[in-house]
C-alpha cells in the first residue's frame, strides 16, 4: 500500500459529511439534551449529527476499500468559472437592486447577467432577452398577480 495514495472524490464526500455531522452534533450539545422519556431540543440534532458523521466515515471507508479507480475529478473537465459567476451574480444583483432599485432593474440585471454566462451569448442577445423577460415579468407579477414589489422605488408607478 505504500507509495501512491490516490486522492478519491469520495474522501472529500465522506469528509464533508463528517464535518457537517460533527458540526451539527457540537452545535446540538448547546441545547438541552434531556432524557429518552423527555427529550430536549438538543436530542435529535446530536443523534443525527453523530449518524451523519458515521456515514461520512463509512463513505470514505468504502472508497478506501474499493480498488475501483475513481479518476473523476472534483471540478468538471472544463470548469465554467465565468458561467458559474454569472449564475451566482444574477440573484445577487436581484437582491441588491430589488432592495434599493425596484422590480424593473432587479429583473433586468438578473436575467442579463445570467444570460451572459452562456458561451455563445452576446451583450445584445442578453439585453434583448432580459428586456423581454422584464416586460413579461412586470405584466405577470405586477399587474396580474400584484405581488408587493414596487416597479421602481422612489417613483409612484
Amino acid at each position, binding site marked *: 500500500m505504500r507509495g501512491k495514495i490516490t486522492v478519491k472524490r469520495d474522501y472529500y464526500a465522506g469528509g464533508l*459529511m463528517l464535518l457537517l455531522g460533527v458540526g451539527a452534533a457540537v452545535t446540538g450539545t448547546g441545547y438541552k439534551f434531556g432524557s429518552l422519556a423527555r427529550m430536549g*431540543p438538543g436530542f*435529535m440534532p446530536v443523534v443525527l449529527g453523530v449518524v451523519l458523521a458515521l456515514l461520512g466515515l463509512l*463513505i470514505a471507508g468504502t472508497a478506501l476499500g474499493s480498488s475501483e479507480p475513481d479518476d473523476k475529478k472534483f471540478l468538471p473537465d472544463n470548469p465554467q468559472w465565468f458561467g458559474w459567476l454569472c*449564475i451566482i451574480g444574477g440573484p445577487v444583483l436581484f437582491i441588491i437592486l430589488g432592495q434599493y432599485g425596484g422590480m424593473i432593474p432587479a*429583473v433586468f440585471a438578473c436575467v442579463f447577467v445570467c444570460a451572459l454566462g452562456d458561451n*455563445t451569448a452576446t451583450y445584445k442577445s442578453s439585453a434583448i432577452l432580459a428586456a423581454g423577460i422584464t416586460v413579461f*415579468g412586470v405584466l405577470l407579477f405586477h399587474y396580474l398577480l400584484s*405581488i408587493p*414589489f414596487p416597479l421602481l422605488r422612489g417613483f409612484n408607478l
Partner: protein
Amino acid sequence: MISTAITDLYYGFGVALEPHNLMYCFLGVLVGNLVGVLPGMGPVATISILLPLTFGMQPVPAILMLSGVYYGAQYGGAICSILLNLPCHPPHAVTCLDGFPLTKQGKGGTALGITIIAAFVGASFGITEMIFLAPFLVKVALEFGPAEVCSLMLVGLLAGSTLAKGSPLKGIAMTVLGLLVGIVGSDIETGQPRFTFGITELFDGVEIIALALGMFGIAEFMNSINNTESVDLRYAKVGISDMFPSKEDLKKSFWPMIRGTLLGSLCALIPGTGPTIASFVSYATEKKISKTPERFGHGAIEGVACPEASTHSSVQGDFIPTMSLGIPGDTVMALLLGALIIHGIVPGPQLISQHADIFWGLIASFWIGNILLVILNVPMIGLWVKLLSIPYRYLYPSAMFFVCIGVYAANNDMFQVGETLFIGVIGYILLRLDFHPAPILLGFVLGPRFEENFRRSLLISRGDLLTFVERPISAFFLFICVVLITAQIYVWLRKPKIIAEEQAIEAQVRTTPYSELAG
C-alpha cells in the same frame, strides 16, 4: 364499498368540475406539459416556482394545479425522449432506447401516438388503484399511534434514499442531512431556536421553496451551463396524421401496455420506488419475455408502450401513500406534501375524511387532467415540437428570473433569495461529489413530523425504546427496514453480478441528468 367509492367519486367530479377548479387543473397540466417538453426544466423546479403563487388561492385549486404539473410533465417528457433522444426526464430515459430509433425510421408519430394511449391506460389504472386502495389504507392507518407512524416514516426515508440511483450510503447521508435541515428553526415544544446562528429569518425554519429551487434550480443550472448538447431537430417533424398507430402496432403494444401498467402500479405502492425505477424494470421485463429481444433498441414499439404505461400508472399511484398516510414516496410528492402543510392541511390518515373535497376532487381532476392532456397533445403536437427548438441559453436565464421572483414572492423577503442562492451553491458541490439531492427534500419534509412522533412515542413509553419492537405493526415496519438494509449489503457484496444487468440498460441511455432521480 364500491358503491361508496362511486358516490365519493361523483362528489369529487362535482368539485373538480367547478369552473374555477377546472381552470386551474387545465393551467396545471398545460404548464406541466410545457416544462415536460422543454429540455432542462423539471417538475420539481416548476412546482416550487408555482407554489408561492398559490398562497392566495383556496387549497383545492392549488393542489389540483400543482399535481397537474407533475403528471402533465410526464406527457411532455416522452416527446423530448422520442423525438430528440434527450433523456432529460429520468422516467422517460428508457423510452429513448426504442423511441428515437422509431423516429429515425420516420415512425416518430406512431411512437408518440402509442405513448399517449399507453399513458392514458397506465394513468387510468393508477387512478382506479388510488380510488380503492387509499380509503383502505386509511382504515389501517387510523389504528396507528406515534410509534407506528415513526417506524413507517423510517421505512419511507430508508427506501427513498437507498432505492434511488447512486450509492445507497450517500443516499442515506443525504436523508440525514435533510432531517438536519428540517431541524433548523424553533423547536416545536420548547421554542428553543436551533441551528439558526442568530439569524432571525431562520427562526421559522428553512423555506421549502428555497431548498427545492436551490437544489433543483440553481445547482442544476450551474451543472448544465455550457454543458448541454446542441439539440438535433432533424427528425423532429411530426404532424397529427402521423400519430394514429396502425392496427398491427396497436396489437403489438396491447399486452406490453397491460404488463407495464401492472408493474408500474406495483412500484408505486413500495415507498421510494417511483416512476423512474418502474420504467426501467418494465423495460427490462418486456425485453426478457419478448420472443424477439433483438428488436429492442432498434425501434420496437413494445419498448415504448411498456415503460410509458408503467411510468404513468406509477405517477398516479405515487399519490396513494402521500394522500392516505402522509408519507411521500419521492421528491415531487414531498413537495406536494409541503404544499398541503403550507395551505394548513395536516397530511395523514385523517385527510380523506376531513378534507374530502381535496382528496376526491384530486382524483376526479386526474381523470379530467388526463383527458385534457390527450386532447392537448394530439392536435397541438406541432406546437410542442416547435418548443423543443428553444435553446438552453434562453431557457436558463428565464428560469433564473422565475426562481428569484418566486422565492421573493413566497414571503416578500429578499433574504429568501439569498438563502436559495446559498443552498444552490452547496447543492452544486454535493452534485459534484456524486450526492443526489432528492433524498434531502424527503428528509426535510418528514423531519419535523418524525421528530414530533419520535418524542411522543417515547414520552408514552417512558423512555423505553423497546416500544417500537413490542407493537406488532411498528415491528413489521422495522423488519422491512432491516430487509432493505440487508438487501443493500447483499447487493454491495455481490456487486458485479446483480448490477451488471441494470447498468447495461443504463449505459445505453446516455448520461441521465441527476435531477429527480429518486422519482
